[in-house]
């Protein structure tokens, strides 16, 4: 019988030992271990594993980069895992090429079932993690929509939008930007038209929400 070679890549030795002891009791698995990415690379240099369980915090650059590296260098099916998955971590791993994502507090029999499933070509993703991933996909598409709408604005319109979000009146904005009140009014109409909003208040709310939503993603313009 051909046995499934499972690479357990985790910086915590005791955790690797737990997985190793569990899988070695099953006759269909061979286990190899790695504590960081360079150890993963050494394993792959010898023989590509069939399945790689990759800790999200794998040193030195994290599990997502390790999943990506594995996908580029061998045919292993990869499963990322962590203790407290976030929507972004699940989506990030799957986008990097992971065939599944597991919680590290999974029950032993659940891990065995998942590894066998992935060996058969199935995805390893529990219902709650699938929900997290869908949530992340929705957030991503909302962000992209927000970005697209903001990109439609000129830099002057963005400046004025920021003032609107602070509750400034046309006269104040005109004085601040040294332009006429009439020009400000025309810019405000253009902003509302491009963002498909009905009022200055809605424009201010849009700006604040976009700022929060895109925080850490990049500047608004």
């Amino acid at each position, binding site marked *: 019988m051909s046995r499934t070679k499972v690479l357990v890549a985790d*910086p*915590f*030795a*005791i*955790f690797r*030992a*737990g*997985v190793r*002891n*569990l899988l070695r009791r099953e006759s269909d698995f061979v286990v190899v271990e790695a504590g960081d990415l360079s150890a993963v690379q050494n394993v792959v240099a010898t023989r590509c594993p069939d399945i790689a369980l990759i800790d999200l915090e794998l040193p030195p650059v994290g599990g997502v980069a390790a999943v990506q590296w594995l996908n580029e260098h061998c045919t292993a099916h990869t499963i990322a895992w962590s*203790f407290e998955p976030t929507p972004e971590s699940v989506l990030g791993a799957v986008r990097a090429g992971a065939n599944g994502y597991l919680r*590290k*507090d*999974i*029950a*032993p029999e659940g*891990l065995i079932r998942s590894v066998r499933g992935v060996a058969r070509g199935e995805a390893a993703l529990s219902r709650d993690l699938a929900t997290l991933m869908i949530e992340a996909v929705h957030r991503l598409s909302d962000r992209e929509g927000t970005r697209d709408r903001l990109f439609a604005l000129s830099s002057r319109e963005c400046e004025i939008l920021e003032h609107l979000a602070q509750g400034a009146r046309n006269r104040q904005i005109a004085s601040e930007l040294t332009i006429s009140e009439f020009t400000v009014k025309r810019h405000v109409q253009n902003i509302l038209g491009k963002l498909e909003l009905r009022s200055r208040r809605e424009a201010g709310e849009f700006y604040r929400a976009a700022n929060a939503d895109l925080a850490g993603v990049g500047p608004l313009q």
Partner: protein
Amino acid sequence: MSSTGRRQPLVAVVYSVPLLCEAIASALDDIAEVRTFPGRRDDVVGLLRSVRPDAVVVDDPIESAQIRGWAQNQDLPLVEICLRELKIRVLRDGEWRESTGTSAESIRNAIAGSLYARDPIRS
């Protein structure tokens, strides 16, 4: 023989991560009897009081804090596996001491060391 008449010392493992039990049970196999208990329960100290272990291993910081005072009073070795910090620490003389290494053998050595230091007759 332990104080409760058992042949081997009893180590209670209170866990939130089942896979860790696999490693701990295997590492302590020949020096202790290991009993595992799913953590995050209401009265973990009450449970341990009734089990009367010779040492306790825990992987949850909140439960570790709950157990600490009782373990100290009982003069029991308490080992905490810190999953976030990737380290193992041992409560000795009321102070946490970081274990060298993060392997299952480190836990074995820490527990064996604590048990035998506490009760030299066992050695």
